[in-house]
């Protein structure tokens, strides 16, 4: 790849949007305030941005549970959340920590000290916790840098 084809900055955060049929919040405005290029955010982070509590961007999950090794699953796109057999993994079951079956939490090998995070915005909720619209981006930013 030549330099001119390289992105100007490395994206540290992937944004996954819902379809936007019933937004309670301005999704693009919230996403625009997120630290997508911030080197303080461990690479590989994902933020699912849904406009309402139905949480379609994260396939109806209000939180992406942590794996047993302490790393949050990184769904990447909504499609990778779903298991190949069409059954959603449930937190606390072995399905959520296995990598080979395509269950959420499957993306990438965790790097010590650089754990990728996944945060879910669903309307005025961040990881299932009520959060005012104005506080969405600061709350998510804080979580990404934790």
């Amino acid at each position, binding site marked *: 790849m030549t330099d001119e084809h390289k992105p100007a900055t490395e994206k540290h955060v992937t944004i996954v949007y819902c379809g936007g049929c019933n*937004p309670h919040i301005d999704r693009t405005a919230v996403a625009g305030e997120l630290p997508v290029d911030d080197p303080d955010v461990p690479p590989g982070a994902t933020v699912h941005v849904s406009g309402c509590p139905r949480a379609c961007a994260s396939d109806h999950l209000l939180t992406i549970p942590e794996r047993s090794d302490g790393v949050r699953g990184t769904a990447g796109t909504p499609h990778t959340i779903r298991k190949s057999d069409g059954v959603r993994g449930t937190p606390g079951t072995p399905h959520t920590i296995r990598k080979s079956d395509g269950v959420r939490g499957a993306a990438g090998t965790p790097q010590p000290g650089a754990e990728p995070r996944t945060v879910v915005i669903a309307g005025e909720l961040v990881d299932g916790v009520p959060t005012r619209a104005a506080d969405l981006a600061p709350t998510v930013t804080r979580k990404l840098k934790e």
Partner: protein
Amino acid sequence: MALRTPEEFVQSLADLHLQIYLFGEKLDDYVNHPIIRPSINCIAMTYELARQPEFADLMLATSHLTGNKVNRFTHIHQSTDDLAKKVKMQRLLGQKTGSCFQRCVGMDAINALYSVTYETDQAKGTEYHARFKKYVQYLQENDLVADGAMTDPKGDRGLAPHEQPDPDVYLHIVERRDEGIVVRGAKAHQTGACNSHEIIVMPTVAMREGDEDYAVSFSCPANARGVYYIYGRQSCDTRKLEDNDLDVGNARFGGQEALMVFDDVFVPWENVYLCGEVEFSGALVERFAGFHRQSYGGCKVGVGDVLIGAAATAADMNGVAKASHIKDKLIEMTHLNETLFSCGLACSHEGVQMPAGNYQIDMLLANVCKQNVTRFPYEIARLAEDIAGGLMVTMPSAQDLADEKIGPIVEKFFVGQCDTPTIDRMRILRLVENLTLGTAAVGYRTESMHGAGSPQAQRIMIGRQSNINHKKELAKALAGVGKPWDKGKAKVPTAEASHRR
């Protein structure tokens, strides 16, 4: 313990020796009382169908706590598929009983408490969730029926719980001990309470500062010391005391409501799931109501199936099945019934996984579902009465039909289509009567109105979640509101201008 048989369930209910009052008397053999037994048969059906392989997919689920197969009524929903199967199971049971089968309230209570106890612990550092999970496992492993008890008598609706002249009109804590709490009060309209092994109490409204003693949730055995029941009457209920199966319309099945009184009942801490955290009582009320409003998109649909079938059969027996207006009315009834089912499924498929890991229905769609339930069964019932004809409320009694002298007269004049025995025509008309204004109308009509919250409660929830500002923005964008307007361009239309556009 494995899944219980219907017989084991009935025996286990008798073994509780509950304190039940009916017509001013305390009952001894309540499981065989003719007014109560049909309601017990309904819950027994939830055990019966769970044992039949052809219904296992709906009636059984895999516990996320133990990995064992459990009756779905004791299950914590683990996916949107679980939510949808719940609705389908309820439709099935409505079809099999033509009644309220009562076991849903406990299922909805455990699913609401599962997420609320988790979130309370996260915010307050309490340990309710671990306790509650143990309790759910106890329900599952023993295949128990739990009553979800929410509605307090409420006294003066204009006053907060702690402002009531009689504090007992809202169930409340009267004493805190090292080993647990003592509660006093009552829960009204308790569906299936006398047919339950366990009681799960929740607050009835969102509480605020000063209401700490009223923000309480706990479980206790249905036969706990100090708990007793006053059985609710139903329209035409004493027909069940008559020794015939004709005039009741549905001789095997029926619903049940009771006033449940807590007269200084002790509850150990291990069964307390909310104790003074007023800010979480609102979430608990909303979630229980939400799950129960979803439920109505299944159970009432199943009963509706029976009523539509009864009306269609009555039309056959009356010899009018081919009349176009009859066909159209049956189509309308089906359309209304399936709309309710659609709402039940929609709020299930749009459900979300909560931070606790369980799945919850979409609140807006669940409230839309129940709002429709406050209306459509009434219209279905009206059309059923229209099709059935006035005979359903003017027929002579079973005793007249059995009488040696006038029985043949009844037979002669109430015959319908020539190959239909009069007795069968009377049976189907009595079933329509039972569902529309007899004992089952408690479940099919008034419970559709007020059960899981009266219509205004849903309208408040719909209003809160309607996202009206987004709708305004959509309209403004299309109408061009706020756009600069050049009035010089407002000219008489011409073909040329039209082409330019």
